[in-house]
């Protein structure tokens, strides 16, 4: 049994439509996992079930040996950071951070010491007497984090904590979060819709869609080997085409071209997918390369470090990012080469 276990969680607000259906998720102690998905996929709902802000219709939620499914939110001892930071506007930074400790009826000196320590750790001691509206976005974010951490929570729950920050600050804050999380060894759930953010910070990622977890793996595994078409699309695969199985590693496209891949599919009919970055182009006057399709350049877009081409082939349009200079022109005949280790079957 894992440290944190969500088993068969179902959430429905109206009794008809399930926001979450049969959701299973387990975490080991000290892990940082991300819930990744588009808006409305159920990732925030999952986090709120863990926090106790939503009671699931079915299923159980356990941490360690205790079943917390019915335990009310204020008895769970989880730290939560909201997207809006949700700082108490009428309290100073110090009072905000000390709020949870005060409720725990700890001694005044103990509270002061703990608050001071966390303020120093989050670089906030200069702002301790300020009110939230006198702080910048990054400072508010740190206050929210300090307030959640000072109660020494069993779980840390982060609901898109970086989405209100500008790009530069977002990167430094996510490194900061990771550092603090590692140092304290605190089991953390991180909700985001930003895949780069999520890949850089997480030990494991759960990609969610329509209330189910489509894939739960390490970031590398998800990046390299998406298991479903949804996951593939979400993390940047843009070319999808039908394939028919001939042999374990040999497939034919709809027009009969033989394509090889190092992967294999269980089903006879499957879908092949590849990132625009992974396709190679070669000029038409060369000899026909293996694992390739003939095509014509239709659209050419300059992306900065590369060109993006829309290539019309016998199996449909394929998007290709290519760094060759000067590149190809619209109307050029080319070969689209699909490297067999980069073609994924979903």
């Amino acid at each position, binding site marked *: 049994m894992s440290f944190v276990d969500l088993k068969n969680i179902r959430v429905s607000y109206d009794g008809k439509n399930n926001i979450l259906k049969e959701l299973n998720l387990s975490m080991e102690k000290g892990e940082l996992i991300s819930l990744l998905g588009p808006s409305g996929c159920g990732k925030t709902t999952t986090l709120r079930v863990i926090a106790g802000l939503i009671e699931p219709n079915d299923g159980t939620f356990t941490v360690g040996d205790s079943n917390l499914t019915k335990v009310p*939110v*204020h008895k769970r001892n989880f*730290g939560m950071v909201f997207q*809006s930071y949700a*700082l*108490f506007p009428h309290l100073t930074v110090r009072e905000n951070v000390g709020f949870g400790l005060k409720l725990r009826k700890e001694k005044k000196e103990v509270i002061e010491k703990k608050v001071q320590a966390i303020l120093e750790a989050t670089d906030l001691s200069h702002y301790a007497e300020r009110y939230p509206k006198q702080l910048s976005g990054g400072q508010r974010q740190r206050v929210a984090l300090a307030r959640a951490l000072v109660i020494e929570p069993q779980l840390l729950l982060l609901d898109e904590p970086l989405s209100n920050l500008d790009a530069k600050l977002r990167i430094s804050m996510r490194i900061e979060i990771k550092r603090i999380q590692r140092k304290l060894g605190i089991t953390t759930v991180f909700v985001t819709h930003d895949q780069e953010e999520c890949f850089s910070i997480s030990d494991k990622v759960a990609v969610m869609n329509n209330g189910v977890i489509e894939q739960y793996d390490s970031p590398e595994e998800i990046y390299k080997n998406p298991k479903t078409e949804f996951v593939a699309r979400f993390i940047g695969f843009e070319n999808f085409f039908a394939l028919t199985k001939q042999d374990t590693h040999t497939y034919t496209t709809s027009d009969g071209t033989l394509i090889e891949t190092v992967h294999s599919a269980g089903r006879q009919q499957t879908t092949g997918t590849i990132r625009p970055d992974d396709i190679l182009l070669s000029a038409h006057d060369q000899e026909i390369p293996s694992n390739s399709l003939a095509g014509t350049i239709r659209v050419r877009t300059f992306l900065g470090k590369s060109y993006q081409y829309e290539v019309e082939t016998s199996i449909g349009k394929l998007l290709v990012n290519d760094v060759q200079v000067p590149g190809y022109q619209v109307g050029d005949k080319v070969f689209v080469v699909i490297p067999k280790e980069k073609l994924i079957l979903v």
Partner: protein
Amino acid sequence: MRKQRGLSIFAGAVFAFLFIPLIIITITAFGENPTIQFPITGFTFQWFTAVFENQSFMDSFLLSLEVSLLATLLALIIGIPAAYALTRQGVKGKSWIKSFFLSPTIIPGVVVGYSLFQFIVIRLQIPLFTGLLLGHFLISLPYIIRVVGSSLEQLDFSIEEVAWTLGSTKFKAFISIVLPNISSSIFASFMLAFINSFNNIPVSQFLSGPGISTLPTTLMNYIEYNYNPVVSALSVLLMLGTIILMFLIEKTLGLAKVV
């Protein structure tokens, strides 16, 4: 520019139309002539003294104060939780309940007064003072629910949720997190409801009786038989009181947010 000037002349005319009667009343309160006259002859404070010497004015003033204060406090006690429930909980038929609570501000005062008269005085035969208090409570409630409700709607709900996750019960979070953040709108709604209740005539007229009469009703009855500057003097005092209260609201919340 010309268009602008036309607009300011028009606005000026509207303001003049609104304020000149009030200014005239104020001036007549200082005239020496025993009937209301404009322009005035001489200058005196005697009508103001007369207001304070008139026992029925003073009695009804104290009664008005008592009724309005109690009614508004009662409305606060009921209205704040009601506003909270309407904004935070998934109450069924929320919009219906909301418009029902606001109905006393939309339905003509005479209708509200008459129906309360029918119900409270004739059907239930509730004692006069209690009936009056109940009527004023009902006309105060919409102000509380509306003003407190709108500031609750603007308050980020997640600050409550965060308080819960930090170990606070829902009740404690309401007291220590929600209330301090809506205190200025509570004060403003209290003032508005109080002014409205204190100055109300239709409801008071129907619900008052022998020995139980609010200041505005007493004033109305007085005007029927006497047409002297005491009326002006009392009006000036009432205006002054209202202006001071409005000023306090403006200072705490800003009128624009409330009305």
